[in-house]
Every structure is written in C-alpha cells, then in structure tokens.
C-alpha cells in the first residue's frame, strides 16, 4: 500500500492507481473531458490537471499514477487558473454556438429548434407537450411578438425564414382539443441563458450551404400552417443551428463552472463543414471537435471497418475519416459509440 495526500487528506491505496480514480473514490470532484471509463487514457485535454505540490508542475489526474508520498492539490487558485487557461485555449479552436439564433432572440427563450425537430419527425405529442411546458396556463405570446426568431432565422439568408410564429400559433390552436401535459425534459424559459455561450453569429455563404445539408430531403415550403402535415414539412427546412449537445456538453458545463466566457478571438482554423452519414445516423461538425481523441481511441480499423483517425499535426491536427475513404462508410455500430462518447457536440446522432 502507498500513501498519497490529496488536498491534505491522506489516502492509503494499492499501488498503480491513477490520481483521478483515488480522488473520485474520496468524493473529490475533478473535471474531465477526454477520459471515459474503459478507454485507454491519453491525457490530451488536460482539463483534469492537478498540481504536484513538490515541484509545482501540473499533471493530468487521469493518466498520472499515484506515487508514495505524493502531495496533490486539486482546487487551489493556481489549479483553477490553469484549468481556465486550458478551457480558453480549447474554446479558441471550438465553434461554441450552443444555441440557435431563433432561441437566443426569443424574449421567452422558447426552444424553437427542438419543436421543429419534433414536428419534422412526426412527433406531434412531444411537440404539443413542449409547447405546453413553455407557455403553461397562459396564452401564447407569439401573436403579439415581433417574431425576432424569424428575423434572426438563418434560413432567411437563403430563401425565407421558417414560419415559426405560424407553426406555434397553429399548434396552440390545437391544444384545446388535446389534454397534453407539460414535458419535464425540456428546459423552460430563460434558464439556458445562465449557461455558457448563447450568442448569435452570422454565417458566411459557404457556411450557409454546409448548414443547408441538414435539410437534404426537403423541398416544399409553407408560409401558412393549417395542419400537422404542412407544419411538418415547413419544420423540415430548419437547419439545426442549435448544438445537438446543448444540454449534455462537457465543455459547456466546465466552462460555465469556471466562469469562462467564449473568447471573442478564435484561431483561424475553424473549418466550416458538416459531415452527414444518414446510413449510420451520424453527423460530424469538425469545428466543434476539441481533438481529445476519445473517438480515435475508442475504436480502430483493425476489424476492417472504417474508423476515425488523426490527420496532420500541431494546430492543424484534426479528427477525420482516413484519406481516400468516404465518411458515409462509417458503420452504424461505430457511429453509436462515437455519438455516445464525444464530450462535445462534434459527433452526434442526426436524430
């Protein structure tokens, strides 16, 4: 057995364990992004860094094996400053657009993209339920509102904005006929705004055409919404400007905890492409990838099936499908693993 001190508490443990696992057992919380139980550690994000009191260096808790006599601190000012630095640097290479412009500009913070998604997938009940949970007993505010959501809708820069207000008014008119209960899963009102990053950025023409890939199978547009069918069609034109990981993003959570804001300056290497694999139900937004490599470590292509890999080095380092292989050849088994372990919204299921 060896002895190690974490935040002045002594732990007696078997040799060979990581600082992270000892701390977790002792109820000491250390944030992680590139760590996932059962997958080999790589210590690439460094957000779990703790301070070795003896020499003052920072060491990743996930990959550092405890040594006898070690003294570790996980929460001093120095450690927090270092973690803030790491998060700021990661955010400089991350496209932090957690929420869609329609929702950010809505005075009531309604989750419009989610409503559109329900409708486009034919999930009428869920859509109505979301509406109820957002408005409660009160009448809908949309008729009196100036519809900032539509003014800011990015679809407007391509042809015309999604008919958000009409969709909501139509749904509201159907509420009386049903007895829908509020949906507890959705986040009501403006609570999301307390979280890190909810801002509106303008897209370039090239970016708009990438975003348009989201609504590949849609053609028809309806301004007036008179039934569920037209509501569904219109909703299918929504380009999914919100992040798929808005509510379960490790990066967003840690940034909010540390009180770090999204840096105005970004490195100039943020790519604009969205890759969509409809067979495997997988979407990859490289600009949201923090290069932690969890996906690369989670599965390789030794089984003969396409797997993600690293390309390039330094700041040009990216996660990608191998050279000469199409992203659409990624198998759904691997797609499931990817969408489960990715700590940000870079790799997610389309639906």
């Amino acid at each position: 057995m060896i002895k190690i001190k974490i935040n002045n508490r002594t732990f007696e443990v078997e040799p060979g364990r990581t600082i992270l696992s000892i701390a977790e057992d002792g109820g000491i919380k250390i944030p992680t992004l590139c760590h996932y139980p059962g997958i080999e550690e790589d210590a690439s994000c460094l957000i779990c860094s703790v301070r070795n009191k003896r020499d003052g260096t920072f060491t990743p808790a996930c990959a550092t094996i405890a040594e006898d006599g070690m003294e570790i601190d996980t929460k001093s000012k120095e450690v927090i400053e270092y973690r803030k630095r790491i998060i700021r640097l990661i955010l400089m290479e991350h496209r932090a657009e957690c929420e869609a412009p329609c929702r950010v500009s809505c005075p009531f913070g309604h989750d419009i993209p989610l409503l559109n998604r329900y409708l486009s997938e034919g999930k009428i009940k869920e859509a109505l339920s979301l509406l109820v949970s957002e408005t409660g007993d009160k009448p809908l505010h949309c008729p009196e509102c100036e519809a900032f959501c539509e003014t800011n809708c990015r679809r407007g820069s391509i042809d015309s904005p999604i008919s958000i207000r009409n969709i909501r008014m139509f749904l509201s008119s159907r509420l009386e006929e049903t007895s829908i209960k509020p949906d507890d899963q959705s986040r009501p009102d403006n609570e999301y705004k307390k979280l890190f990053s909810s801002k509106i950025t303008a897209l370039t023409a090239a970016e708009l055409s990438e975003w348009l890939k989201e609504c590949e199978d849609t053609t028809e547009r309806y301004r007036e919404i008179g039934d569920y069918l037209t509501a569904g069609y219109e909703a299918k034109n929504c380009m999914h400007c919100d992040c798929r990981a808005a509510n379960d993003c490790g990066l967003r959570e840690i940034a909010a905890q540390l009180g770090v804001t999204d840096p105005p300056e970004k490195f100039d290497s943020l790519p604009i492409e969205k890759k969509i694999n409809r067979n495997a139900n997988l979407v990859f937004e490289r600009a949201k990838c923090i290069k932690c490599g969890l996906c690369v470590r989670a599965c390789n292509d030794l089984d003969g099936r396409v797997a993600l890999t690293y390309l390039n080095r330094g700041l040009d380092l990216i996660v990608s499908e191998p050279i000469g292989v199409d992203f659409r050849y990624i198998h759904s088994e691997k797609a499931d693993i990817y969408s489960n372990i990715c700590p940000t919204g870079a790799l997610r299921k389309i639906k």
Partner: protein
Amino acid sequence: MTQKMESSGGIVHGNDKVIEVVNELVEFYGTASDKVVQILTGIQNRLNYLPDEALIEVARLTDITPGQISEISTFYPQFRHKPTGRHIIQFCAGTTCFLKGSREIKEAFRDYLKIEESKSCSPDNLFSIEDVECLGVCAIAPAVRIGNEIYGNLSTADVGRVVEGFLESIEKKPRPVNKSALDNITGEIRVGIGSCCVAKGSKEVLTEIVAYKESKNIPVLVKPVGCTGACGYTPIMDIVSNEGDRKRYVAVTPQDVESIMEENFGDKKNMVNTVDDARGIISKKLDDYLAKQTRITTDTGGILSPVSLNEYISKGGLEPFKRLVNEKNRSLIIDRLTLSGLKEKSSSKLVGEEIWSLKTDENGSHAIICYSEENDTGSFKDRMMLETFPFKIIEGMLIMGLAADIGRAIFHISDMYPLAKRRIKNAISQYIKAGYLGYNILDSGFSFEIIVIEGPGDFMCGERESEFAGMRVLMLSPETFCGVPSVFENGNSDGNNARKTPNTLIVGLTGRVDTPGVVEVAEGTSIGVIIDRFGGGTESKENIKAVHIGGLAGCFIPKELFDMPLDYDIFRNNSLFLGPGNIEMINEADSIVDLTLHFADFARRQSCGKCAICRAGTKRMYDIITKIREKNCAKEELAELELLCVHLKKGSLCGLGKNAPNAVVSALKYFKKEFEDGLLA
C-alpha cells in the same frame, strides 16, 4: 481500361504506375506495419508525392490500416499529398537564415519564378518551393537547396543566377576526377568538401586543381578532406609537403587555382608568393583561429579524408579499439570512460554512468543510437561532425558497444543531411570490408552491427528518448561518440591510466558574425571569450546586442551577461538551456520581437498537437507576439503572454512544450522594452 492521368511537374503516371510502384516497394520492404515510413518514402521518391490511390493500395497490401497510414503520412511534414514541380527549392527556416533575410529571398524566388501567393508551384511546373526546418549550413546563411545542390550567402539579386545556374548544372555531367596513383608523390593538396564548402565552390576549386595537376603531370596527391569548422574562411586549400611543411590559402576561387599552382609547382616556384601575400593576413588569422581552440574531438578536421578508412587507420585511428577489443574485463572500459569525465552534452550526464545503467538494465534488448535527427535550427555542427568524422564516430560506437556488451548500434540521420548520410553509409561499408564490423570482429568474439535509419527530418522531443522499436536505447550525439576514442589514445591496457580529458564543447558560431564556423573549446569558456577569439571583425562586435544560444529551445542572453561560462550545469542552474550549443549573434538593429516570433512560429509548427496546452498554447503565443509586432497588442494580452509561458512550462507533458516558451521568457526578461513598444497606445 480508362486511366486517370495525373500530371505532376512533367511526371505523368496513371493508376497502373501507382499500383506497380506500391507493389514493388511492398515486396521489397514486406508487409509489417513498422515499415510504413520506408514504404511511403519510397513511393514519394518514385512518384514525387503520395497519391491517395497509393495510400489505399499500401493499406490493402500490408498490415497497415487506412487509419494508420493516414495518420502517419500526414504527421511528418516531409510527406507530400499533392504533386510538386520537377525541382523543389527548399528554404531553410533556421534562425541564422531568418536573421539574414530568408523571407526576402523567398519572395524574390516567388517573383522570379512567378509563383502566386497562395501556390507553391511555378506555372510551368518546373519549380516548387517548400520550407524546411534547417538545412544545417548556418555558416553560409541565407541558404536554399535545389535538388542536391546547396546555394549559400544569397542576396535577392542572386536569385536569377541561382535558378539558371541550377538548370545548367543538371544538364552537364561533372568532369570525372582521375584517381590514378603516382609513385613519387611529393605531398598533398587538401581541400574541404563539407556541405558549406561545396556550396561555396570547393568542388570547382578541386576540379581546377585536378585539371592543372594532370595537364602538368605533378606528383602530388589531391585529397578532399573533412571540415575544419572555419567556415568563414572557406574554401581552404592546404598544400602540404611530405616533410609536413604547409602553405595555406583561404577563400580560394577557381580563378585563383592556376596562380596558386604556378607558384608552388610551376615555373614561378619558390618565387614571390603573390597569392599568399595577398591573403597572408587572413591565412594567419585562420592559423590563430585553429590554434586558439582546444581541438581534441575535432583534431583531424581538415586534415584527414572523410572517405578513406585506410588513411584513418594509418594515422592511428582504431588503435584504441584494437587494444580494447582484447580486454578481458570490459567493465574496466566503463570505469575509464567514467574517470575521464566524458559527458553527453545534451544531458550533461557522464557517458560512463549512462553505459553502466544500460548494461545493468535487464529488460529486453538494448541498442545505442547516434541521434542527429533533430533538425533544430543551428544544429549544423551535428551535420558537420557526421560529414567529417565518420570513422571516428563509428570507432566511438564500437568502443561503447564493447563496454556495454551490446551488438547493435543505430544511426538516425535527418533527411536534411544527405551528404552526412552518404558518408556514414560509406564508412560503414568500409568498416565491414576491413573486418572491423560484423560477426566476431578480429576473432575476439565481439560482434557488432550498425544500421542507418532514414529519419523523417523533424524536431522531436519527449517520449521517444528511452525507447525505440521496443528496445531500451541510449541516445547520444555524434559529438559524444566522436570524443570516445580520444579517451583511450596513448593509453595502455592498464586500467589506471585513463587520462582525465578536459571536457570540450563544440560550438557553432553563426548569425551576425564575420567568420562563422564550428569551434571546439574547453567547457567553461565564456560567451564573450568565444566571440572575441572567433567572431572576427566588425559586423558583430561593435553592434552586438545579444546572443541566442541553444537552438529552438534556447534563450536570449544580453551582452551584459557575456561573462557567463558555457557550462551545461551553470546554464541549468540559471534556468537556461544550452541545447546543441550553437551561438547566434544578434545586432542592435535586429528586432528581438521578430526573432521571438520566429521561435514561437517554430514551436507552433512542431507541436505534435496531442495536448491542448501545447497545441493551442504555442499558437496563442505566436498570435500575441504577432500583435506586438504589428503594434496592436492590448496590455492585458502582454500579461496573458507571460502567464501563458508559465503554464506551458509547468503543464506541458513533453520537452517540446516545456521548452517552447524559453525564447519568449528570456526575451521578456531582458528586452521587455521592445515588447512594450508594441502595445496599443
């Protein structure tokens, strides 16, 4: 069958050609996944770049998966995924070239070849341009390489001459050198043929000498020799009689050869030495230059041929090894190495102790590696050592192998140093032919093999240091191996008389210096003394503001601190980094901010990208210094830069990240004013 034709600077090939090349290479190297770098290098040499189809085919034929091959082929910067022009012009990104205007030279080449801003290939597909970390010829900075030719001391006005000269040179074949032996040889003429010397015209000088000699049938041996290290004086021509009398000419041009030969061998023999008189002062200076050094490791530079093992042996080479190979108790060799105080310069550890720890390590197989792959800017002395002392370095390896009871050594030589690689390979084959390498050497029971690994030429630190292909290895610099035979010279097999060698340091002196070169001095000599003794005239001394020492992980030292001795321990205790021991001199007129940006740029490009702090931290460092340079930096950002350096140092996981901020930290410590001038008003 329809063929997809690809044009690459005149090299046209279809898919069949690609498949054929890949098949040949896979057949040659085998299908094991550790052969991937060799196979890729082979493909690129044949096809000029790595077409996607080739990568797919390699993955199909070998154990390498598409993921692995994609990762490796994009990680090493020398692999190209797009076709280039027929000839590649490589621009050195080293510090001395940077100081001497490499950026302007590159622009001039772009203009001359009409290469557009965003492109790297000329419209006629004849030339491509590419940046490389360091060509290792700092003494003739700024330099470029085209094909196998190096062109140095360039100015923007030279560009047309260089391009046209290169095109001419590839058309005509060099005149063959007649090597016919003569019976009554009266002496020898020595001419240096290191990379820098060649670039300054020593091959042409040699050709003229041979032509004169043959036309007049003069009984003298014309001998190409290794580097003296006095790069500021090259090409050097030494005429040495059998009695050892020597006449020395410096900065010789092909046009000088005839009169030099005349006054030594022709009608004007023993008359007034016109050429010598004209250059007499400089020639004396060169003698001083050499005499003021402590040449132990580099003693034979400029004297012995780097391509003749016979000559090496005839001048006492291999004596130490021949004596030691019959030593019964080989541990004594280690004791003597330890006693001698010989240290590996980069780590400052005693070589004897390092060998002992390798020998007593019981895990797995062992090897020693001569590591010269780091294309650190200014590490040109490694190249010079390999080119000049291949036989001595190999003898050092043999002795170490004997001491550590190891049967294998590896050379890891940068692709940037083709001549060094050729010389080492040539030396190894001569050793094998003479029976000093291979199975049961000299019937002693000791067997030893040396292999040369074609190393991708880039700067790497960190985890690779103690393991190589699963072997526990000892990595040492060429300089250290070269110092080993000297320890055992003049000794006998009695274990007590190992001499305590003065530890010397081989230092490259470049940058704003009149007489650049490589000098060997006793450890502890101060920076100021080195500059005074070897720096030469005016360009440097009066205006010098600082030096930068230690390559890319090194630091700035202002002139107030020039009394500091060059000593690895003292440097370390002052949180400084001596690294490859190269000194770059910096003038008052040079901007420290510009130079710091140059080092930050290097760190940014060399980061492997694995850890967030190094990948994004080095980039942020670069961005902030860029703002300072553009006088567009907020005060908070300068403060951010200082803390960022601390975080990089304390948080990075490998040597590259930890040392990346060294230049910035020292620049901010000694030249903060220059940075504050870049703040927003």
